[in-house]
Structures are given as structure tokens and as C-alpha cells.
């Protein structure tokens, strides 16, 4: 297997860090590995589809036995399900949140595994740093919370947004305008951008530090003591690596939590 991150050259003699000429090289893998019925299976597409396989396998092997006394793996999967069901859906939305558990659960596991690729040896690329996934997930969240609002309140859902009864009449047009853009445009946008930006930043930091560390250390014969910089980059990368594991879990949680909060505000606008 050829280990190629992206094309580029590093002037390790004159520079102290290796930066790619084009940052897209760290994220874009558009060259198809296979083509199935005209559909290009790129590395990213493969990894995205693999999320479905990984999550399905995790759930299948974790929940198939239904043991009264669970194994460690079963307990782990059950705690994940329970975390989303009780800790997010029911805690945030209320008893009605049970209806939204399949969607919230899917979002959480999808984002979690997609993020986990960032620190998975041999992969080291979070597919959630590709805008397609945050946009898709945010669009689904938008559809769910708007439909929830319409189903609960009918047309008054939109009226409640543009003409909020809880603020003084004089302020309603202004607040209504802000709310309209905030709820219907900014919400999905921030959902998508927050996840995307966090994963892009994490991936950039890790790849730059690891690649620089590797390049400087492996060229010790040519650059001498300057190779010590590579060690520093590696140590820093280790710290960032641990930090990124926290960010990965946190971003999956935040995306799911905010999606639940948006549904809750659609169902209970008075809150």
C-alpha cells in the first residue's frame, strides 16, 4: 500500500514545519478507487459507507444476545443507547423524545464513528471534515425540527417565529426577523459548520504535526540537530491526539444535543 497523504514538498532545510501548498490536499480524495454502476467509490465514499457497516456491526453484536447479565461489550453498547435515549432524547425533549430516539441515535453514532476516523490508525481522516456530511446531517435535523413544529402547531409554528408573542409588540418585527433567520437558517448552518470546522481544525493540526515530525526526524542525516524539531512536533501531536479524542466525542454529543434542543423548541415554543 502506498502511503500517500497528499502531494507536496517540504523544505525541511529552511522551514520549521511542513505545510502543504494547498490545504485541500489533506481533505480531498476524489480519485475513485472503484466505480460501481458509474458511481465513484473514492476513499472518502468508502469510509462513509464503512460507517454504516461499523455502526450496524456494533449494534448487532452488542445487542443480539439480550443477556440479562450483559458482557462488557453489550454493557458498552447498551450504555451508548441509553445515553442517547435517556441522556439526550428524554432529558431534553421530554417523554415525547422517545419518538426521536432512532434519529438521534443514528446521528450520534454516525457522527461519532465519522469523527473517530480522525484518530483511527491507518485511516487518520475524519470524514465529518468533508462538508457533505455535516450539511446532510444538519439538513436532516432541520427537516425534523421544522416538521415537528408544523405537526405540533400547524401554521402557528412559523407565525410564532416571525411574530413572537413573548416580546413587546414594538420589538416583534425585529425579533421576528432575527428569529426567522436564526431558527430557519442559522441553526442548521451553525450545526454543520461547528462540526465541520472542529474536524477540519483537528485533522489539520494532527497531520501537520505528525508529517512535520516524521519529515524532520527521518532527515536527521541531512539536517542534523534540527531534527529535534521533529521530536517536539511529535510530542505536541501526542497532546493534540488526546485532546482530539475528547473533541470527537464532544462534537458528536453537541450535534445530537442541539438537534434535540431544536426539536424541543419546535414542540414547546413557550419554553
Amino acid at each position, binding site marked *: *500500500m502506498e*502511503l*500517500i*497523504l*497528499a*502531494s*507536496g514538498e*517540504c523544505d525541511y532545510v529552511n522551514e520549521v514545519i*511542513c505545510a*502543504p*501548498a*494547498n*490545504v*485541500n*490536499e489533506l*481533505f*480531498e*480524495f*476524489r*480519485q475513485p*478507487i472503484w466505480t460501481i454502476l458509474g*458511481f465513484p467509490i*473514492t*476513499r*472518502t*465514499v468508502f469510509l*462513509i*459507507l464503512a*460507517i*454504516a457497516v461499523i*455502526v*450496524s456491526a456494533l*449494534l*448487532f453484536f452488542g*445487542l443480539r444476545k*439480550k*443477556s*440479562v447479565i*450483559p458482557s462488557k461489550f453489550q454493557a458498552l453498547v*447498551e450504555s451508548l*443507547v441509553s445515553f442517547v*435515549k435517556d441522556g439526550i432524547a428524554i432529558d431534553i425533549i421530554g417523554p415525547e423524545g422517545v419518538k426521536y430516539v*432512532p*434519529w438521534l*441515535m*443514528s446521528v450520534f*453514532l*454516525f457522527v461519532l464513528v465519522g469523527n473517530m476516523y480522525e484518530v483511527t490508525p491507518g485511516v487518520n*481522516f475524519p*470524514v465529518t471534515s*468533508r*462538508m*457533505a*456530511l455535516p450539511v*446532510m446531517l444538519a439538513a436532516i435535523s432541520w427537516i425534523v425540527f421544522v416538521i415537528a413544529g408544523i405537526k405540533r402547531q400547524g401554521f402557528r409554528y412559523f407565525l410564532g417565529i416571525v411574530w413572537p408573542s413573548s416580546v413587546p409588540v414594538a420589538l416583534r418585527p425585529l425579533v421576528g426577523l432575527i428569529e426567522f433567520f436564526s431558527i430557519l437558517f442559522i441553526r442548521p448552518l451553525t450545526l454543520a459548520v461547528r462540526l465541520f470546522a472542529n474536524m477540519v481544525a483537528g485533522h489539520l493540526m494532527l*497531520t501537520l504535526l505528525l*508529517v512535520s515530525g*516524521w*519529515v524532520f526526524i527521518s*532527515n536527521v542525516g541531512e539536517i542534523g540537530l534540527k531534527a529535534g524539531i521533529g521530536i517536539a512536533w511529535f510530542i505536541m501531536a501526542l497532546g493534540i491526539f488526546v485532546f482530539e479524542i475528547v473533541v470527537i466525542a464532544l462534537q458528536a454529543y453537541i450535534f445530537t444535543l442541539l438537534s434535540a434542543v431544536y426539536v424541543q423548541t419546535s414542540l414547546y415554543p413557550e419554553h
Partner: protein
Amino acid sequence: MYQAWNLILATAEPTPISAETGGESGGIDLLLPAPEELIAGIIAFAIIFLVVWKFALPAFKKTLEGRQDAIKGELAAAEQAKQEAASLLDDYRAQVAGAKDEAAQIVAAAREAGDAVKADIVTRAEAEAQAIKARANEEVAADRARVADELKRQVADLSINVAERVVGSSIDADQQRVLVDRYIDELGGVQ
């Protein structure tokens, strides 16, 4: 020149730099969703949603219900065991109380029997003592009578001897004895 980025990770070939970015860093490309990734994402999400909805959550629910039933069963069994234990304890307590009563009755009966035996022994002892006493009295009386007779005979003999010495042998010995006995009897009657 050295290929610096030939390092970790991807199996893919290096990305051809797009005409739009022209090799410049960053760019709008990163912010635009790639259609094939969007489609793959929708497919993957749909699969996950189906698995979660149709398998994971029902399985999870079933597991929890099974666990709930097991706990309920265990609690019911524990409650039943507790009741049985309480019932057994009551039985044991009743048995102990019965045993105590029985023991008290046995002790009382034994005491009564003991008292009866004691009374019997005392009665018999008293009767025996009375009998011994009576026998002793009889023996004493008999001895007394025998001694009196002996004394009377000796006194008579002595008196005859004395009388013979005084009056000679004019009187027949048997007559003298009869006389002496009468005299002694009279003396006894005077006393």
C-alpha cells in the same frame, strides 16, 4: 525533491489540484459538499437509521424488558422466600413456646409426682415408725409383765423361805405359794 507528504494514511492517489483552486491553499472547494460523498452519506445514514430503528432499539427494549422481568421475578421470589422464612419463624416460635409449656407441665408433673412419692415415703415411714413403736411398747409391756411375774415368783419364793424359817414347815409349799400370790395380788390391787 523529497516527497514530504508521502507519509501516513491514505490509499488514494494524490488529489489532482483542481482548476478552480489552481494549487492555491484552501478555497471554496472545502466548503462545497461533494455529490458522491453526499449520496454516500445519505445511504450510510439511511442504513444506520434502519438498523437502529428496526433492530437496535427493539432489541434494547427487549433486553431491558427481560432484565425488568428477571428483576421482578427475583424480587417476587425474594418476597416469597421472606414470607416463608417469616412463616417458618412463627412456626418455630410457636413450637418453642409449646415446648416451653410442655417442659413446664413436665416439671410440674414431676414435682407433683415427687411430692406424692415424698408424702408416701413419709406416710410409710411414719406408719413404720408407729408400728416399730407399738411393737417396742408391746415388747416393753411383755418384758414388764415377764419381769413382774418373775419378781412375783421370786418374792413368793423368798417369802415362803422366810415363812418356813419362821414357822417351820407346817404349811404345804403349794399352799404357801398360793397364799403369797394372793397377798402379792392384793398388794398389787392396793397399789
